[in-house]
């Protein structure tokens, strides 16, 4: 059986076809009653296609052909539409999958920190042959994902709902074992917040996706458990992302009296000590029981209060101060302070005041005028003036009109929109409400990518609460104004961030962009005028209305006003989600907020704007954050990814990385993008593999310019940017590759691992080599068998004296981490593996990160700051 037959077998999409190693799965007959129910729930119109497919996959874990045929019988959806859609989006699978799905993040930050090697290690460990994605036992299916949005924890994998960060190839067997162990123990269901008397204060636990990836959910659960057990009268509160992702999980303790305290990198086992330190149980019996527990814990050595000290943070502490000091929060105002889903808290901080003004007092023209005076431009990347777009939609003829929030943030290395949707759903709703009034729309749609389940969940919940409280619905805030909101989930296609593709997707079609004009503002969803704005753009609107356009316009440069949210990651000391005023220079962001280069490294570029952006070289770091200034460098503002690259990063590899992404995400419609990006990628692959020829760079550059000039949509027009900028600023690296050298020591075919004279024969490299390329020779100098070596880098990382080096073109291009002087404060970088120089003993050096050592206290009143 196959989905399509006889036409072509270039790439097959088998349906219901059992692979040889998946015999015991999915053989049960497909229960079509489920399909009937799903159709009943999702509707029969063509635009229901994607929700129906998502529901079918949620149930069966893939799309059985019988189910799809049934859908065509039951609905207005024709077979060609359904199959076209199902094969377009990356989310849909046509084969039964393993019991657990491992998502390997190939985001930019993960890529520069070795995602490729993690992928190889997984495949090797699971015994996958080329082309296979599921292990012989059918336990795990390995899938690549564009970005999990946990860039500060790179490299990251996600197994079902559990995320593992800061991995090395050597950790993979342990991670899988841990996961299976946790599975067999059964997972703890999360409890709702406990009711009671919270007069003693509150504990705020960051529950953004990155915090959760670092185990904050477990921390939250432990707090609840302990507080219930000890009957401590405090509230445990979930708050959104704080932005300091390099310190996650973050917990802030705010006692009713006294100073608040921030703890970084909290682990579940730290919870009892934190609670004990700040709070006492009220009831005698509870106190006794608590005391007994504590005494027992002490006996068992569970609590070590002194160990807590080094983890708490203070905004006055220089690094923290630098991280927060240059930031200015508008879109992310109140970060870390409010419960994302508490409407009352949002209202208490001035929430929906702007919407009230817009709906009750101001005319549409007044709103647009105010936005116009603020100078707000679209934050999705292109920077189109927001008020201008609103005016076009307002003036466009055709009813009904729609307001759409573009939350299809797909750039690897960008997670601003996810964080805003997760942490401030009401703010975005308010922005959309104001926009709806301004353009005369009564229906709004959130388009959020399916990879952001938490954002989808919170936005849905927030819409529901708003409806209950009369903020959304037929009588918005008690007026005649009518506005309804709903959520559409994306299905895994980066190109759907392009507005015409987004609309095609909402209409239940393949997410293929079309030629503009006509623009969606005039001819959009269902052929009606549709306003499409980015999440961050909407999030800025309430502030502008509340505080006035002038205050917003005072920030920034002549043409770029206000603030911009960036996801800062890569080879810097402090990564995270930051919001900065426009006009700040790249250098200020990288040096002051990011803390500069990792020890012993030299920063050489920053990749701005993700796959559509470009690499800006260090020489241009004084460029201000400004739409025009960034465009002049060859990059673009983009949606806000900032990936810092240092001397260990190969720029050709970076260009190839981004092109792989865009090439993979091309919708396949127009010739220049569909084939052009593939041919560019092939040339880059050849160069990285040492098969480049003279003339390749000229062919590449010419093609890049043509694709950029002639492609149909933004994806194709900007896809060559990473290639063009690296060719512009780092041409000598390309030329080195043509000579057979990779100066950064990244490109596997051009490098080899060599063990230098100083080898002490400790055998660690031999013990850790996953492919047996290093024969065991105790107390003698070891050697790498180049034919067997897979360049997994493990030996270099484990060598206690840095004797394993990387050679390219006959010279050493990378030393082992232990070759440099001790560096413990940098999170994430390979140089931070703990341990000094181990002279003689053959012992296993732990690869885990050390914790940072920062001490002090903070007040919770400091509201402009993160915590």
């Amino acid at each position, binding site marked *: 059986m196959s989905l399509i037959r006889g036409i072509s077998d270039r790439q097959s999409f088998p349906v219901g076809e059992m692979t040889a190693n998946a015999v015991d799965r999915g053989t049960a007959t497909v229960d079509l009653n489920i399909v009937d129910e799903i159709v009943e729930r999702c509707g029969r119109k063509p635009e229901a296609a994607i929700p129906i497919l998502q529901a079918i996959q949620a149930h069966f874990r893939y799309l059985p052909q019988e189910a799809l045929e049934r859908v065509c019988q039951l609905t207005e959806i024709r077979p060609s539409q359904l199959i076209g859609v199902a094969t*377009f989006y990356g989310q849909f699978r046509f084969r039964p999958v393993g019991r657990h799905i491992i998502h390997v993040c190939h985001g930019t930050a993960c890529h520069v920190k070795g995602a490729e090697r993690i992928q190889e290690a997984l495949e090797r460990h699971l015994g996958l042959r080329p082309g296979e994605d599921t292990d012989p036992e059918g336990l795990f299916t390995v899938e690549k994902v564009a970005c999990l949005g946990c860039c500060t924890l790179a490299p990251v994998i996600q197994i079902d709902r559990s995320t593992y960060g800061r991995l090395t190839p050597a950790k993979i067997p342990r991670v899988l074992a841990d996961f299976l162990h946790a599975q067999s123990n059964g997972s703890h269901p999360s409890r709702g917040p406990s009711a009671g008397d919270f007069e003693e204060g509150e504990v705020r636990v960051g529950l953004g996706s990155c915090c959760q990836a670092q185990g904050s959910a477990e921390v939250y659960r432990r707090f609840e458990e302990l507080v219930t057990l000890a009957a401590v009268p405090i509230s445990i509160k979930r708050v959104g992302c704080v932005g300091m992702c390099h310190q996650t999980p973050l917990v802030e303790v705010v006692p009713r009296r006294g100073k608040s305290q921030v703890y970084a990198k909290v682990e579940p086992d730290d919870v009892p000590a934190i609670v004990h330190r700040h709070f006492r149980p009220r009831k005698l019996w509870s106190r006794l029981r608590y005391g007994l527990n504590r005494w027992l814990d002490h006996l068992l050595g569970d609590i070590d209060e002194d160990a807590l000290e080094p983890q708490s943070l203070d905004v006055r502490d220089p690094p923290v101060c630098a991280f927060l000091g240059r930031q200015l929060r508008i879109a992310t105002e109140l970060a870390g302070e409010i419960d994302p889903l508490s409407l009352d808290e949002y209202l208490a901080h001035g929430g929906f005041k702007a919407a009230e003004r817009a709906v009750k007092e101001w005319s549409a023209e007044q709103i647009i005028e105010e936005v116009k005076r603020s100078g707000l431009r679209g934050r999705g990347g292109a920077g189109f003036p927001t008020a201008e777009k609103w005016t076009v939609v307002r003036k466009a003829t055709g009813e009904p009109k729609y307001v759409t929030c573009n939350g299809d943030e797909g750039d690897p290395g960008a997670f601003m929109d996810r964080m805003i949707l997760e942490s401030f759903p009401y703010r975005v709703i308010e922005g959309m409400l104001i926009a709806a009034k301004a353009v005369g729309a009564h229906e709004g749609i959130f388009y959020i990518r399916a990879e952001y389940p938490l954002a989808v969940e919170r936005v849905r919940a927030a819409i529901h609460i708003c409806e209950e409280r009369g903020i959304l619905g037929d009588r918005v805030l008690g007026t005649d104004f009518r506005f309804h909101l709903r959520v559409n989930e994306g299905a895994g296609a980066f190109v759907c961030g392009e507005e015409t593709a987004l609309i095609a997707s909402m209409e239940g079609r393949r997410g293929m962009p079309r030629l503009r004009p006509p623009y969606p503002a005039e001819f959009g969803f269902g052929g009606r005028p549709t306003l499409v704005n980015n999440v961050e753009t909407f999030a800025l609107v309430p502030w502008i209305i509340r505080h006035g356009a002038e205050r917003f316009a005072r920030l920034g440069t002549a043409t770029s006003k206000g603030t911009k949210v960036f996801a800062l990651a890569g080879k810097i000391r402090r990564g995270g989600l930051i919001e900065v005023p426009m006009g700040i220079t790249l250098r200020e962001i990288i040096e002051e907020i990011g803390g500069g280069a990792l020890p012993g490294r030299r920063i050489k570029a920053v990749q701005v704007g993700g796959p559509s952006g470009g690499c800006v070289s260090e020489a241009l770091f004084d460029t201000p954050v400004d739409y025009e200034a960034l465009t002049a460098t060859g990059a673009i503002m983009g949606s806000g990814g900032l990936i810092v690259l240092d001397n260990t990063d190969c720029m050709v590899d970076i260009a190839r990385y981004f092109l792989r992404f865009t090439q993979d995400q091309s919708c396949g419609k127009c010739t220049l993008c569909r084939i052009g990006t593939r041919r560019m990628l092939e040339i880059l692959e050849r160069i990285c593999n040492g098969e480049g020829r003279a003339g390749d760079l000229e062919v590449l550059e010419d093609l890049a310019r043509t694709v950029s000039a002639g492609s149909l949509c933004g994806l194709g027009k900007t896809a060559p940017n990473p290639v063009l900028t690296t060719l512009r600023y780092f041409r000598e690296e390309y030329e080195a590759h043509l000579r057979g050298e990779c100066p950064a020591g990244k490109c596997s075919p051009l490098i080899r691992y060599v063990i230098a004279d100083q080898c002490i024969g400790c055998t660690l490299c031999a013990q850790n080599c996953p492919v047996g390329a290093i024969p065991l020779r105790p107390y003698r100098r070891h050697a790498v068998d180049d034919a067997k070596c897979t360049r997994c880098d493990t030996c270099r990382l484990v060598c206690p004296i840095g004797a394993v080096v990387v050679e390219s073109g006959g010279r050493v291009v990378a030393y082992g981490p232990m070759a440099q002087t001790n560096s413990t404060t940098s999170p994430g970088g390979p140089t931070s593996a703990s341990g000094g120089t181990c002279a003689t003993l053959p012992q296993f050096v732990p690869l885990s990160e050390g914790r940072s050592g920062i001490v002090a206290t903070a007040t919770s009143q400091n509201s402009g700051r993160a915590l």
Partner: protein
Amino acid sequence: MNEAHCRVSIDGRIIEVPRGTTVLQAARQLGLDIPTLCYLEGLKPQTSCLVCTVKVIENGRARMMPACGTPVSDGMVVESETAEVAHVRRRALELILSDHVGDCFAPCHYACPARMDIPTVLRHIQVGQLSEAIATIKRAVAIPATLSYVCPRPCEKGCRRHYLDEPVMICQLSRFVAEKDLTSDAPYSPPCQPNSGRAVAVVGAGPTGLSAAFYLRQAGHQVTIFDSAPQPGGRLRQMIGEDAGRVPIDILDAEIALILRSGVEYRGETPLVTSEQSGLTLTLLTRQFDAVLLAFGEQSQGFYRAIGLACDNRGLVVDRGTFQTSLPQVFAAGSAIRGRVSVARSCADGKSVAECIDAFLREGHPRNVTEPFGVRMGRLEKEELDRLAQVAARSGKETPPQEWDIETAREQAGRCLHCDCRALPVCRLRQYAERYGVDPNRYRAQRARFEIVSQPSGVIFEPGKCILCGICVELTESARAPLGLTFIGRGFDVRIGVPFDKSLEEALGELAAQCVAACPTGALSFREGKPQLTLPILRVQNLSSQTSR
């Protein structure tokens, strides 16, 4: 001008068109030929091929846009025929061709020095149309029956069938057709163009000279052949005999007679002599004729110098593209310039030089004759060959018949795999590739697998030739076909597919003919009824940039 109209400038020409008109429609009203592949009149623009790209300047902003989908606006300035626009179109075509799997012309065609359109000949034979077959043969070879006795048969070595079992017996079939024609009441003689008033002297009556005379006469020129021997034939006369590899004398005489009967004059026993001697000198010839062709076989450098032509260390100085010697009026071809070559090569040269001389006489200057553009997929894997063979009408090894008759000939011709493109005469991709001078191998891409799907109704689909224009998808969509065609997958791997376990035939239904007709390339075609070839196919080999993967 009113609100409903826009004034647009296209390549400097102003046109006023109703609002909503596309740039393409406006340009066509002006008679400008903007190339299109994915555009079909009456369907909404697909804007996928981007071959119709133009530069649009609007409100001071210049952009490259597909003309088919861009509506005009008042004051819009469009550039179409500029180097910048041609560059984008050329790259788009090169990218399409870099992902194109198929042969424009069959391998046998390229193997034949005379570039005979062998698959077409075989198709004619297969359906018993021998008069069409001889006409096609004679467009490439002037003396096919003679040649068939002495030809080394490179075509059969190039035949794909060769890798499967035995090649199609092209040479035998060609002889069968040619001899059948010679023995008929009215042997085929192609019509000649009206008299051009120009006269050409051909020195040498061997295969090169005879061939050149044949085609020059067809082109309307007055032709006189000079030779030292009393009878025409040149070195063919030394090959006469009844044994294998020798030409029966009656065949040779009959074919030469046919050429002379078309109006070619023969003057035997008139050798070309050096200027010191008395007799037929080159000076005399150039004075009396508008052009002279030297086709007298291998000669010494001394002789060339003596008749007044320049030589270098490789021999006679000749432009390899135009066959022109150091004297503008004098051309040389065949063994005269190549050393001893096969009769087939000589025949091919005769035909090519005839074209060059014809261009010289009509246009006053020689013109490089180039090979028509064609992509080649090169050698096929066994699995790919099997697919090709499945689609071909007949298969299996055939033993050569004792006696050739129409039935055995048809059977043998039926073994052809039809490697050439069924859409060759109508394929716009090939035409534009030729127009824009594209290099299909610029990107050194690896060839994708060759696939071919044949349906019982005669529809053939070759995914490798599909440019994903979307026309067939749109046609089935707008006709609300119950099943329909769809794009499958995304990005580079997108292809056209039929939902579920259904066949292409079920998807196309009654729209098959419409879809085949609308397909801009040879991706969709009918097994039978290949359009008749209209292009002249012969020419000088200068393929370095076009030879395939």
